[in-house]
């Protein structure tokens, strides 16, 4: 790769200012309540400078270092998903007219332009999967409007967490596509590349300097080292066949002993798209809003049909989570639904790790998968 232009650390604010001048709300990582969260930002100094993190099963901690870097950490609990697939939103509402008839209205969609600075490779891959679901399989005007307003600025990952396994899923740590602009972070500044026409136009307005080839090689090397440092991985082979060939594996029951059926794994997973809908009538009884909210295969409502909850116990719910995410996604969307972000491991209150469960469940049948 040719050496990209270089944006010195001290000039990062120019990027943010340009975005804001162009009418974007800039959303970027910040430290909130002990985690790295994405929220509106207008000053570089709000970025998590020098912050690193430590993650393991059911555990997440931030540490302050004197590093000059702003992106020396792996993902926190959420990134892009809440900005495209809202945790709760109104879809439509209706009201009773004076002649007694009902009138229905579609809820307004969000169109405010949003630029997200600091998107990770895993989340870009997850976004592509959500696009398949919400823009192609089941076109959704609310998702579509939020999605189209996004400008995505990736920062290639150099500090994976112990829970990350994006190298094994082929989705990171270096972002390959799906971004408008991408940044390789070094102690001194950023190498900037464009991934779209909008990114190209933005890049040309930045005060870039000629980049140093050796420094760029070192920066790219860091993403490679980040891949090599990852410990976890998905089992080799046809996961869909292995999972569906093991529906009665005793491990489903074993994991159900530990699993709280709390749904945290699915809520932090950047590709999970399940939701439920309900009506919220007004106190006057003259109008009602129809809302949708994130749901989970761990909830009783998820498998409720005509008076019965089909998956009552945790073993069947946990099995639904893994057989869908790592199995039938292949059929549905041509790949596994996992981008290796490791969130489900860190944010599971009891630290259950799907890669470990998969290893046990798929081990016995690695042979019959062919």
């Amino acid at each position, binding site marked *: 790769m040719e050496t990209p232009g270089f944006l010195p650390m001290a000039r990062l604010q120019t990027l943010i200012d340009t975005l804001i001048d162009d009418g974007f709300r800039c959303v970027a990582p910040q430290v*909130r*309540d*002990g*985690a790295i*969260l994405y929220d509106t930002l207008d000053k570089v100094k709000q970025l998590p400078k020098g912050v690193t993190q430590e993650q393991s099963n*059911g*555990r*997440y*901690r931030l540490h302050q270092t004197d590093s000059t870097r702003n992106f020396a950490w792996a993902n926190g*609990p*959420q990134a892009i998903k*809440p900005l495209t697939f809202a*945790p*709760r939103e109104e879809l439509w509402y209706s009201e009773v007219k004076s002649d007694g008839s009902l009138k229905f209205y579609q809820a307004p969609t969000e169109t405010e332009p949003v630029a997200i600075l600091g998107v990770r490779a895993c989340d870009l891959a997850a976004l592509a999967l959500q696009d398949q679901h919400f823009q192609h399989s089941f076109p959704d005007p609310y998702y579509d409007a939020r999605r189209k307003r996004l400008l995505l600025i990736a920062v290639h990952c150099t500090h994976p967490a112990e829970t990350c396994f994006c190298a094994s899923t082929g989705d990171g740590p270096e972002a390959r596509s799906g971004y408008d602009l991408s940044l390789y972070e070094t102690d001194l500044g950023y190498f900037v590349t464009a991934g779209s026409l909008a990114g190209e136009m933005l890049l040309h307005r930045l005060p870039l300097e000629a980049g140093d080839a050796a420094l760029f090689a070192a920066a790219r090397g860091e993403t490679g080292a980040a891949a090599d440092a990852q410990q976890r991985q998905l089992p080799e082979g046809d996961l869909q066949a292995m999972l569906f060939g093991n529906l009665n594996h005793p491990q489903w029951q074993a994991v159900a*002993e*530990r*699993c*709280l*059926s*709390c*749904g*945290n794994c699915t*809520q*932090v997973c950047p590709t999970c798209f399940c939701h439920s809908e*309900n009506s*919220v*009538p007004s*106190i*006057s*009884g003259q109008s009602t809003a129809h809302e949708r*909210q*994130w*749901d*989970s295969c761990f*909830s*009783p*409502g998820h498998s409720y049909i005509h008076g019965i909850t089909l998956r*009552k*116990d*945790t073993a069947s719910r946990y099995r639904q989570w893994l057989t869908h995410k790592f199995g039938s996604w292949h059929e549905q969307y041509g790949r596994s639904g996992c981008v290796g972000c490791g969130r489900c491991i*860190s*944010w599971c*209150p*009891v630290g259950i790790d799907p890669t470990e469960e998969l290893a046990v469940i798929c081990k016995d049948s690695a042979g019959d998968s062919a």
Partner: protein
Amino acid sequence: MHNLEKKPRIAVHKFSSCDGCQLAFLNLGGDLLELTRRVEIMHFLEAGLDAPEAEVDIAFVEGSLSTQDEIERIRKVRESSRYLITIGACATAGGLQALRNLDNQHEQWRDAIYAKPEFIKTLNHARPIADEVRVDFELWGCPINSRQLLAAINSLLFGVPPIDDRDKVCLECKRQQRVCVMVTEDKPCLGPVTRTGCGALCPSFGRDCYGCYGPADNPNTASLSKRFAGLGLLPQAIARRFLLINSAAPAFHDAGLIARSGVSGDDSDD
């Protein structure tokens, strides 16, 4: 609304409780006036309406059954109501008062606490309403909130059963995009076994849920107890997590007693 005679009638009854759940009505403020265009409130002492015997379509009942008199009274309420809905932890699961069920020292406590114990006529155990009469729907929480209340009233007015949302607090906690206090701060949060409804209030303020909405669907208290032990909680401390607001709700009661017997840290289930 067109025919005043047809306006559904409601009553709000109080048993052994702190009155906090009734505030879910009063906190509606202006909306309470709006509500009275659709329903007629017959009995609600806290709002100055005194007709406990009135026949009603929906009776809301706050408080546990703690005296013999209350047992007689709840039977009458049941007879004069089409639907009976319990509001809050006391009515639904016995509430804080049910803590006294745990040590069987009712007389000793009574005599120690009250200056003139001879005037105190309480039952040994505080019990939920459903122990005595049929309950049509339960609103959990200590206290409940106006949102739950309105959803239940609206459903009944539209002629459909209210939604019994038994999801866990965690689901809502994540929808609210709160940072998990157990994962980041090792706080012993009961969210993973507690019923949703509060809007994940405690984690929103950086606190661990203490289970005031009672047990959720499918609560794995054994695994959570083990996790609490891993966080360094001693068996008595784990027991106190479960034996608090909803100590008489079976799932929390059993988890508390198991923890108290000291076996929470391992897998034995003797």
